[in-house]
């Protein structure tokens, strides 16, 4: 689960990370008032969307007058900002962050992730800030510093000083950087984060360190115990079909093909997409109905898949372990009765109660195309697509 930059900065400010003075604005007047109250001569206006790369899309601008603050805010709010991460349609900007600008001497990178290799929270830092850390790791791996944290001890002071020294800090700044690392670690641990990034961490005006941009994402599985973070979720930043699906206990991800997929289990769902691709078809979505798929759940899966106008055929692939094929079959028949389904449907059932599932589909009289196995299913759905075209 992601949150906005202004929310991340508020959270980190509470932990003692120095961030620029600033507030979020929802309209032009609001932005002007904030800039006036902040004072100074220059302000940064930043579009608040979850996607990165905002600077490249014109979503980050420095204003030298209140009029410019108004102008930039006006240009951003209500428009779809296109960045390298949003896709061509962009993302609607509904608010901007107005901050006091500062002079930057040097930029650093400071991040934390849960590293799969060490299976620990790991600090990632670099003296090359302001740019994409993945790029730095690729072109100049020696400039990326990694330090794993022992969960029983926490991030130790000596580790912070070691990282700070390797980042090139000297004198007072070593202690300052160490304090920021400790604060970021506490926020990461307390709030069940999966990722935290300060990029850039900047050496500004008088040698102070400040987090000029910050990003955090959180573990959805832990949000039951983090109501303060859950509150920050912005549904406008998420795909409406994906949100609807998760409300029904379904895991749905929209893709750009034309074969709708309804599968149980994440691994089999991916493999089904792969099998379709192998036969030169293009999956329209990833959909995992999960365990305990009731007829209602199957109906909801159909509704969501069919909301995508690109879907020209559907492949249902169920390998029932904890599920039961007869429930799935009932759900399929019910969906056919309730929804106006015009596209061919290929069904492959296997596992628990398969012998009860197939007769239900046959008896229904609906033109299900039955498949014997995964390869057969993928072949048939691609063929059905060609017939329909």
């Amino acid at each position, binding site marked *: 689960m992601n949150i906005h930059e202004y929310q991340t900065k508020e959270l980190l400010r509470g932990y003692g990370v120095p961030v620029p003075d600033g507030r979020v604005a929802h309209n032009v007047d609001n932005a002007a008032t904030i800039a006036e109250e902040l004072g100074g001569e220059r302000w940064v206006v930043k579009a608040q969307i979850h996607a990165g790369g905002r600077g490249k899309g014109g979503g980050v601008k420095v204003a030298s007058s209140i009029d410019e603050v108004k102008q930039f805010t006006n240009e951003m709010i209500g428009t779809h900002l296109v960045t390298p991460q949003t896709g061509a349609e962009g993302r609607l900007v509904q608010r901007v962050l107005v901050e006091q600008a500062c002079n930057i001497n040097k930029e650093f990178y400071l991040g934390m992730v849960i590293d799969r290799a060490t299976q620990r929270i790991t600090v990632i830092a670099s003296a090359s800030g302001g740019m994409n850390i993945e790029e730095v790791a690729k072109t100049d791996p020696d400039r990326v510093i990694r330090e794993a944290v022992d969960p029983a001890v926490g991030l130790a002071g000596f580790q912070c000083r070691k990282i700070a020294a390797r980042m090139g800090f000297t004198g007072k700044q070593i202690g300052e950087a160490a304090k920021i690392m400790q604060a970021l670690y506490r926020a990461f641990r307390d709030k069940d984060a999966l990722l935290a990034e300060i990029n850039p961490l900047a050496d500004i005006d008088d040698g102070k360190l400040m987090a000029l941009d910050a990003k955090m994402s959180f573990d959805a599985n832990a949000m039951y*115990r983090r109501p303060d973070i859950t509150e920050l979720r912005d549904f406008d930043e998420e795909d409406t079909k994906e949100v609807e699906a998760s409300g029904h206990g379904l895991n749905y991800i929209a893709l750009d093909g034309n074969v709708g997929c309804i599968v149980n289990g994440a691994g089999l769902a991916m493999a089904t997409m792969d099998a379709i*691709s192998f036969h030169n078809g293009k999956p329209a979505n990833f959909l995992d109905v999960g365990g305990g798929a009731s007829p209602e759940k199957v109906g909801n899966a159909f509704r969501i898949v069919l909301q995508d106008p690109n879907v020209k055929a559907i492949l249902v692939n169920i390998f029932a372990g904890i599920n039961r094929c007869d429930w799935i079959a009932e759900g399929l028949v019910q969906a056919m009765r309730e929804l106006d389904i015009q596209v061919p449907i290929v069904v492959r059932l296997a596992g628990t109660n398969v012998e009860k599932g197939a007769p239900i589909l046959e008896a229904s009289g609906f033109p299900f195309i039955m498949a014997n196995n995964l390869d057969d299913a993928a072949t048939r759905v691609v063929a059905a697509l060609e017939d329909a075209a």
Partner: protein
Amino acid sequence: MSVFVHKHSRVIIQGFTGQHATFHAEESMKNGTTVVGGVTPGKGGQEHLGLPVFDTVHQAVAETGADVSGIFVPPPFAADAIMEALEAGIGVIVVIADGIPVQDMVRVKRYAAGKDAIIIGPNTPGIITPDACKVGIMPSHIYTPGRIGVVSRSGTLNYEAVQQMSEMGMGQTTSVGIGGDPVNGTDFVTVLRAFEADPETEAVIMIGEIGGQQEVDAARWARENMSKPVVGFVAGVSAPPGRRMGHAGAIISGEADTANAKMDLMEELGVHVVRNPALIGETARRVFS
């Protein structure tokens, strides 16, 4: 023989009296598994499925000599349950729960360091040595005793591969689901090492997915240390980068994480890679015959 669980394994179920635990404990017993009791705090002294219920794992181990535990408690309580089993000296801990907070597992792994135990999962269908011991939720009837070791991250894709094998007349020594989470108890290398050491296992099928590097690490290990052939598949060739595909661990966060990148490397390292998931069984037959 087999790996991790066998016909002498003595199994307890944590969260024993819950609905799913009850159903799957009964299924396991029908499949020949020796379930010796279970744990549900507050229900100690009762009987369930004709077996004793204990308040703590410590008591259960002392009374029954259990050495394997299947953990069926909900995700918020699972980390504590795993540590309880570790502390009580259980040797094989199978964690079914899907949705344990990642940082909980980070702490569990730290707690497990230095203890002589195998944690299988979380987010796994479990482990099965056909007709001898099953701890998990997989449909037992698709598994048959045989000579092939199976290890996978995904549950349903494990079923898919096993079904394809069964249709070709190939059975399994043991099938291990290591789970779909980014921080898990047991990695591919640990399971490959066990299969290599098991005299009955003649070959291994390894089924991975996008995210992380453990399939490649395993292939590298296998090249140096394994005499038995390995057939491999990585799910998610058609998955877009940056999106979490159901499993918390299935996300492409860099070029090296993609299914094709991993399969290319595995192939270079000597794994018999299957590019079409529908042909896992057929490839296995060709390679192993």
